[in-house]
């Protein structure tokens, strides 16, 4: 049984003041996430990521289609006891302290004292707010709110966690901490479904991704597969090549660039690479690196998106 199963999910919004016309925010989404996966949900603004998450949380009702979480239809409220959710740009009751908020959430899950107090203390420690438990949320910085948000999503030790832009507003330190949290969740077998703009983080964490654009699913699959498809060749960097070597090399590669002391060569296929390496070495140059050129997720992303005429 997949942890998350989405079939034909569609959402139309009615916009306009007098004559309302529908705008399709989500178009026939089919998606499946297995248990224990860390799944990345990507796309530019307005792609439908947050809409999807809200529908999964029953905050919005789909126009058509269905979805299940842990085998239960999404409109079964009791299923929420097994999941956690961090909304985008979260806002919590600013008159409560962090501790009070987490205690409140715990009560909603039916966790009783004294276990509740212990849990809350532990959560605060885990997200790095151990000292700030007694401060009112209205005095928190954005980063601290984000951390509280993660904490409140984990109060019930969920089996599936949904995070909408969990890194937003965090400094690099904070982002690393979130990455650690996600990693530890993964090691405990928790399914993590998160949407993000920050592609390096996604690359680092996710097993699989889905790329959304204008409400449609653009591509989905393991990251390696998506990106390997596009390996365009190799890049060789060397230094200390003499002029004759350089001349020889320029004939073997597609492109040769001088960067100060170094030479950057681009070669189309593996055979060329071998020849270049041999030539360079025999010419007495120092080989600095040989790496396959594959577009980063960012490049892939931009190409996919702009390629479809955004």
């Amino acid at each position, binding site marked *: 049984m997949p942890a998350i199963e989405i079939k034909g999910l569609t959402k139309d919004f009615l916009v306009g003041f007098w004559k309302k016309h529908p705008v399709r925010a989500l178009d026939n989404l089919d998606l499946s996430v297995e248990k224990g996966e860390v799944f990345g949900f990507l796309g530019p603004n307005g792609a439908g990521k947050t809409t999807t998450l809200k529908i999964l949380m*029953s905050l919005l*009702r789909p126009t058509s289609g269905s979805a299940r979480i842990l085998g239960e239809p999404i409109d079964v409220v009791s299923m*929420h*006891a097994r*999941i956690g959710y961090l*909304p985008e740009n*979260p*806002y919590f009751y600013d008159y409560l302290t962090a501790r009070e908020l987490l205690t*409140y959430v715990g009560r909603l899950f039916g966790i009783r004292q004294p276990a509740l107090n212990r849990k809350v203390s532990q959560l605060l420690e885990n997200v790095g707010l151990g000292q700030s438990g007694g401060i009112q949320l209205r005095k928190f910085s954005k980063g601290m709110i984000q951390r509280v948000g993660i904490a409140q999503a984990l109060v019930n030790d969920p089996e599936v966690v*949904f995070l909408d832009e969990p890194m937003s507003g965090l400094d690099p330190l904070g982002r690393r901490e979130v990455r650690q949290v996600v990693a530890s969740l993964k090691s405990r077998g928790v399914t993590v479904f998160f949407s993000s703009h920050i592609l390096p983080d996604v690359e680092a964490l996710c097993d699989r991704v889905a790329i959304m654009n204008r409400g449609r699913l653009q591509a989905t699959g393991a990251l390696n597969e998506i990106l390997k498809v596009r390996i365009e060749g190799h890049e060789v960097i060397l230094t200390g090549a003499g002029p004759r070597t350089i001349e020889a090399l320029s004939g073997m590669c597609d492109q040769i660039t001088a960067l100060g002391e170094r030479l950057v060569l681009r070669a189309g296929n593996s055979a060329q690479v071998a020849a270049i390496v041999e030539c360079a070495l025999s010419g007495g140059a120092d080989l600095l690196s040989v790496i396959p050129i594959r577009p980063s997720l960012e490049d892939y992303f931009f190409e996919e998106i702009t390629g479809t005429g955004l």
Partner: protein
Amino acid sequence: MRILAIARNTFRENIRDKILYNLILFALIMILSSVALGQLTLGHEDKVIVDLGLTSISVFGTLIAIFIGISLVHKEIEKRTVHALLAKPVHRAEFIAGKFLGLLFTLFINTAIMTAGLILTLMWHGGAGLQGYLRLLPAVYLIFLSLSLTTALALLFSTFSTPALSALFTFFLWVIGHFNYDLREFGRLTKSGALQSLCTTLYYLLPNFANFELIGSQNVIQGAAYYRPIDAAAVGWVSVYGALYGAILLGIAAAVFSRRDFK
């Protein structure tokens, strides 16, 4: 239970809202100043204190019910705190019930404080003992019923309307709700059958606040001021009306809230 957790949180929110303290302070000042005012009536002091005291409790209670009630749900939607909340195993109806109970409890505490202030003022100033003043309690109870209904109204509007409009509608219905009998009489006096049916329908449809203020043709506050006993059976029936009408309002609120999308 979850509803109680939400109610408790709502209560905490209200307690930390400054407008509450201003209104309570105002009410207490009014009750105390009624002693001074009483001097002007040459011999009617007790009556004036009770009149002004109970009227203050009613008026300020209504203001609190409206001002806090109209933002009960709206504020959560505006500030988007509702997003995280509804992702928890909480039914939308539970949310409505919890908010309502939270504000109701706040009103209960308020009313209790103001009533205590009133009784203390009377004991300090007047002649009758505590026994006599405890007979004010049925009047306070009826006022509280009226406040509950106002709260339910404000809450209902809060689920789909902005605070300004909610306040307007709630206040409007509260005022109209005092004229139900006149509306029905008006219908009876006209020759038109259609108009009469309309008026009668409205009579049952609109919230009848006069129920809580007129028990057996005796104005409740006036009766309390003259320390007259109150008809217990009538109070019982009026309570049933309040519970029924309130439940209907909350039901509609829950239904409206259930169908909402939260963008």
